[in-house]
């Protein structure tokens, strides 16, 4: 007997046109990626740098590790906070698939919470006690990435749910699982490395600990270079391993799909060229800023392509369902107003803080 394992659409309908949720999902996911990259890539880099420093705090690697750990105080919180929005919008658009995928993974999905908590507090423990905590934090965040990739691959393949219900670990055997995971991790390392290089170049150019910052910039630049080499190779492998209908969908989608994909590939190759141009980034601050900007743009475009592959994976299923649209334009308008006020508030707050330095009795 043929049984349909895909649940029905939510009876409440979509509270707005689908395109709006697609845009919000991709945009907020991009925001999340920025901080996620800093968290995951930064923690891995900090751990390796900490090991290479062999406990010497004045060593360039030691300073780099401390700097990345300090950034993580903000990045982890903001990665979680910005992750709430795409989690919200994916539930609106893909609730049938997303919930089914997470239920099939069960405890692995639940473990995400525990992994995040341990990862975060281990990073704090490292600040106070050193020891193995940075390694623990790296492993936890890597495991979080594993869970997310698993959820993604399970939820987009309802034709395999029956098999996954017997053993969800089978997702590890999906041809694209490991290349997809590697893609995220390498991108995270590249991003964190470029941010570290950019910051070190700024400090060095401002005359602050020039020698140490120059060495940090060069080290981080090397990290970014080699991670990008691997990233580009892995990207082509991932593309080749995509299921044929998905790959064909990307190729036949015209400008809408080929445009972002081509641009992302061109940018990735361009990144390689820019990174290989110089081994002394501190002498080329414009190149460093440009490379970081190009990488940020690449991340944004890859967020679009990733979403398009999800749409293509699910197309055979989603084409069977037609959601009722029950728009809530009034409350959406309120959201936009609140968002603008919120962004303005953050801007005003940060500006006031930056323009109000104080010391001693004058300080808070």
């Amino acid at each position, binding site marked *: 007997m043929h049984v349909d394992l895909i649940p029905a659409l939510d009876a409440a309908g979509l509270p707005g046109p689908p395109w709006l949720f697609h845009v919000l999902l991709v945009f907020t996911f991009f925001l999340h990626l920025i901080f996620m990259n800093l968290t995951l890539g930064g923690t891995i880099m900090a751990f390796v740098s900490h090991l290479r420093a062999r406990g010497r705090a004045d060593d360039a690697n030691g300073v780099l590790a401390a700097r990345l750990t300090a950034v993580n105080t903000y990045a982890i919180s903001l990665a979680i906070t910005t992750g709430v929005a795409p989690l919200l919008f994916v539930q609106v658009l893909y609730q049938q698939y997303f919930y089914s995928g997470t*239920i099939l993974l069960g405890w692995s999905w639940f473990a995400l919470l525990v992994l995040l908590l341990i990862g975060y507090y281990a990073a704090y423990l490292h600040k106070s006690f050193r020891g193995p905590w940075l390694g623990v934090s790296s492993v936890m965040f890597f495991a979080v990435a594993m869970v997310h990739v698993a959820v993604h691959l399970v939820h987009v393949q309802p034709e395999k749910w029956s098999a996954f219900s017997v053993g969800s670990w089978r997702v590890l055997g999906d041809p694209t699982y490991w290349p997809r995971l590697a893609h995220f991790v390498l991108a995270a390392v590249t991003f964190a490395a470029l941010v570290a290089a950019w910051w070190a170049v700024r400090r060095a150019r401002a005359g602050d600990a020039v020698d140490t910052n120059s060495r940090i910039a060069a080290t981080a630049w090397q990290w970014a270079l080699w991670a990008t080499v691997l990233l580009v190779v892995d990207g082509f492998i991932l593309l080749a391993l995509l299921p044929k209908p998905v790959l064909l969908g990307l190729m036949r989608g015209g400008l809408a799909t080929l445009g972002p994909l081509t641009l992302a590939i061109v940018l990735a190759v361009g990144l390689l060229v820019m990174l290989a141009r110089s081994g002394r980034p501190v002498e080329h601050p414009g190149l460093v800023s440009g490379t970081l900007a190009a990488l940020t743009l690449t991340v944004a475009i890859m967020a679009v392509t990733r979403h398009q592959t999800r749409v293509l994976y699910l197309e055979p299923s989603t084409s069977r369902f037609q959601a009722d649209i029950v728009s809530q334009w009034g409350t959406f308008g309120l959201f936009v107003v609140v968002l603008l006020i919120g962004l303005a508030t953050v801007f005003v707050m940060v500006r*006031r*803080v930056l323009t*109000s330095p104080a010391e001693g009795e004058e300080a808070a």
Partner: protein
Amino acid sequence: MDYPIWSSGLSGGVLMAWVAITHVIVAHFAIGGGLVVVATETLSVKRADRELRELARRSSLVLILVSTVFGAISGVGIWVVAGLISPGAISSLIHTYVWGWAIEWVFFIVEIVAALVYYTTWDKISKGAHLMVGWLYVVSAYLSLVIINGIITFMLTPGDWLASRAFWDGFFNPTYWPSLVLRTGIAALMAVAFMVFVALTSSPERRPDIMRYLGWWWLAGALVSYAGYRWWEAALPDTVTAMFRGAEPWLPTLDATRAFTLWALAAGLAVGVLILLVAPRLARAVTGVVLMVAAFAFFGGYERLREGVRKPFLIHSHMFSNGLLVSQIEAINAAGLAAHSGWVAQGDPSPEALGERLYLAQCSSCHSLDGYQSIRRALPTLADMELVAADDPPGSGALHYRRECAACHRDVSYEEMAAMLPSVEEIRDDSEMIHELNRGMITMVILELREMGADFAAFDPAETFDLRGLHRPVMPPFVGTDEEAEALAAYLATLERPNSGAAAVGGE
């Protein structure tokens, strides 16, 4: 009910309770803590009081460590667990209130940024700028409560939304304002319960002043909480109040929970006033422990009550606790749950196996096999029947019946049940017969639950359902065909416990 079923081995409700209670404690602490910490800093600037400043500064570290990550992760945790155990319900809430959640997310972003900046800029920026950051934190944290409170209260008292399906009708529902007042008071209690520990590290000469200062916050929090609670209870529909109030509440345990909740608040208020306000020199770590226990007990009791009185719904009068929509009852009864859910249809077609899948789909969101709300313990054993039938010594049968059986057989007296049961000799001679009898009783209960579906379907869907008069008002109806009811009964009958108590018959 058409999603795959997560067989975690735990009751979904228990898992949700752990995550949700952890989150609400932290989330309310983040709100109340922010308010008290920033108000304290403001006061310290006005009075040039270094001790008060230190109280605020030291408290802000815990605020940041707890609220910015633990609060955020446990908040996401509620979505994670809800998606695992009640995907239909969380989907319905998200589709109805996505823009509410999106607005809350904006406040959350501002709150987190402000918290991080607030903590890391002590001693680095001017007092005025620091206070501005602090108050932005307080306002954004409180506004996130203003939003989420509408969604939480909507689940218990959707009010006019049932007829209009309009966002604001559900948001500003009958318990919205009472709940907001109550949670505001709770937030203050959470903050003081923690800050007492920080205040203990103040200098000995200033400690009494600081304890008394916290005492006023505690008193205000307790009084606001009490007023909010009373208002909340008064705003509940009668059909909800009947669950835990009156001469014969449907769920006496909730009546006990209510008493526990209010006594916890009273005890906390008494200790807080006596120690913090009247005799602050006596304040010790144990004072903080007592206040924390009282605050947690009051808050936990209230949350347990709020969740409990929503039975059998997740969204009152709209969606049952197992994800079944009221509007689906008739269609599923006609075609069967297997026609509605591939996860029920897929697999071994034997009645017992189908019954297990039906159990997982319809019952497992509230029940576990052996743990919380155990199905196995609810099933009568051969020993139960022997004890009731034997009634030896006289009176023991009625006592056992009241303790073990009457909760399900509310409309059957002990005498009626004893008359229906075979004699104790017949029970001992033919154990197979008693199994059949047992299965018959299970079938009867399932069919009663199925018939109750017609009662629910007959209600006006635009009104809050009046559950008074229903046979089993705290349970969702069983939905499915006759064959599916038989299959569920066949599965449940396999769960009979070993006949552990049989030897005791006649021996006591």
